[in-house]
């Protein structure tokens, strides 16, 4: 995989309704969606959760291919979780070999976990695909601003996040440049055992750290030159505004959440009725 193929946390500019939503609404609704996924207790409820992302993606204009790409790096985690649950959850044994055994409950839990994690990633990727990093941190800062009264450094943390996000592409580009330069001097990054490989990374990591520190110093200086002195009394260039799109999105999410809860209750009733019979 090439470094530049990583798309998590990448923003794709656009004009879709989801792009135009207030970042605060998007953040809150993403959180609500994550809760929704873990509230779902049966297949029907989970299907409603899956439907939610499937409907949201077309509305954002972000291609479905991109979600698939975004899940690629976490695929090992998903597979690991799936296998872990498959073999370790107690229940009625349906298949066994040597000391391994798969239970009906194991299959169910494994399938649930995999679908949940996939939705979780697709849902949060939708947030970062459609929200510029600046808008995102602005939203986070405003959502958490009540904590400022308790003395929490909300502005500082948000500023740090903005800067960190801003520099991810720069650092990736820089890493590729340094890698090319060391390869040009015959650095061998591809072969050897794990220790040799870690050692082979040093010629890349050291210049990378040196330049990250240099950049940080330059940036701090540039900010001070422009009289940056923290969040106190700072006004914003872009004022966040809630519009009818946000209202619609809230209603849409609320409808799905209700459907999930209804599915939970309805299916439990169903199970109850079955056992009564």
């Amino acid at each position, binding site marked *: 995989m090439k470094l*530049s193929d990583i798309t998590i946390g990448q923003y794709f500019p656009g004009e879709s309704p989801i792009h135009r939503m207030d970042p605060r609404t998007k953040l809150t609704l993403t959180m609500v969606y994550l809760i929704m996924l873990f509230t779902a207790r049966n297949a029907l409820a989970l299907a409603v959760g899956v439907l939610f992302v499937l409907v949201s993606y077309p509305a954002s204009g972000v291609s479905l291919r991109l979600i698939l790409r975004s899940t690629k790096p976490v695929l090992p985690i998903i597979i690991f979780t799936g296998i872990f649950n498959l073999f370790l959850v107690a229940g009625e044994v349906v298949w066994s070999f040597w000391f391994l055994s798969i239970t009906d409950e194991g299959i169910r839990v494994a399938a649930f976990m995999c679908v949940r994690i996939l939705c979780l990633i697709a849902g949060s990727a939708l947030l970062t695909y459609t929200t510029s990093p600046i808008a995102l941190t602005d939203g986070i800062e405003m959502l958490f601003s009540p904590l400022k009264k308790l003395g929490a450094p909300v502005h500082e943390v948000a500023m740090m996040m903005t800067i960190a996000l801003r520099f991810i592409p720069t650092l990736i580009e820089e890493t590729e*440049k*340094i890698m*090319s*330069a*060391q*390869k*040009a*001097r*015959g*650095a*061998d990054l591809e072969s050897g055992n794990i220790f040799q490989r870690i050692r082979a990374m*040093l*010629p890349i990591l*050291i*210049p990378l750290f*040196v*330049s990250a520190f240099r950049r940080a110093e330059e940036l701090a200086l540039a900010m001070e030159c422009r009289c940056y002195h923290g969040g106190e009394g700072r006004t914003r260039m872009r004022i966040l505004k809630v519009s009818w799109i946000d209202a619609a999105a809230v209603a849409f999410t609320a409808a799905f959440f209700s459907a999930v809860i209804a599915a939970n209750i309805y299916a439990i009733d169903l199970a109850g009725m079955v056992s009564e019979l």
Partner: protein
Amino acid sequence: MSPIIKTDGLSHIYSAGTVFEQAAIKDINVEINRGEFVGVIGHTGSGKSTLIQHFNGLLKPTSGKIFVEGEDIWEKPREIRRFRFKVGLVFQYPEYQLFEDTVYKDIAFGPTNMGLAEEEVDKRVREAAAFVELKPELLEKSPFELSGGQKRRAAIAGVIAMNPEVLILDEPTAGLDPRGRDRILGEIKEYHEQRSNTVLLVSHNMEDIARYAAKVMVLNQSRVFMYDTVESVFSRARELQEMGLSVPQVTKICLRLAQAGVEISPQTYTIKSAKARIIELLGRKRPNEAE
């Protein structure tokens, strides 16, 4: 004699198959002969850096072939490292790749990767350092303690120490003062003359190209627009200016003088030759006042 580097329909597309797809070089067919000093010019984004990274196999062509000493370098991808030692590449701002705790060790990185014996590495490091005029006592210092120009020279020494058949430098003088610039280019010229190796110099400075290179490759919009001797390339001043490039200032002056009726050739590229010609003309017109 066969060319040391030859390309055959070389093209490179960045991020192929995505929305960010971009053709950086298209259908490049060039031959670089052994022992030549070639200047590479072209406006920003014309594909110079992309092209030279193909010569040592850092970038793999989207289509086309590269031959180094007659061998197709991508025939056996596992052996690509061999060609990185034959074709040494100095990147733009090479000082940012220094990493060892002493200058000596950093210069030794390349030769050590080649698997040379310790004495040979030592010999090469000292020779390379001498070429770029780094004093022996600086070798034991940390590269991060050097001045900007010294760092740059140390990084160039790191590539020279591999004794490559072809030395490619991507804007080696960017961000240096005029004296630092002349010094580095002078050292490269000397290296070229002593070892009679092939040198490719990417530069935006036409004066430097006219002064040091024998041939010039002009890239325009991802293609090779001209590849000829300095004289014939700079004689097409108008075309160069149309594509946003220029000719050396002294050439511009001579062009104007020639237009004004002075008997001076517009094919004058260096201050030295212009000066000689002007003195000659002055001497001829006013023999009494020549002093």
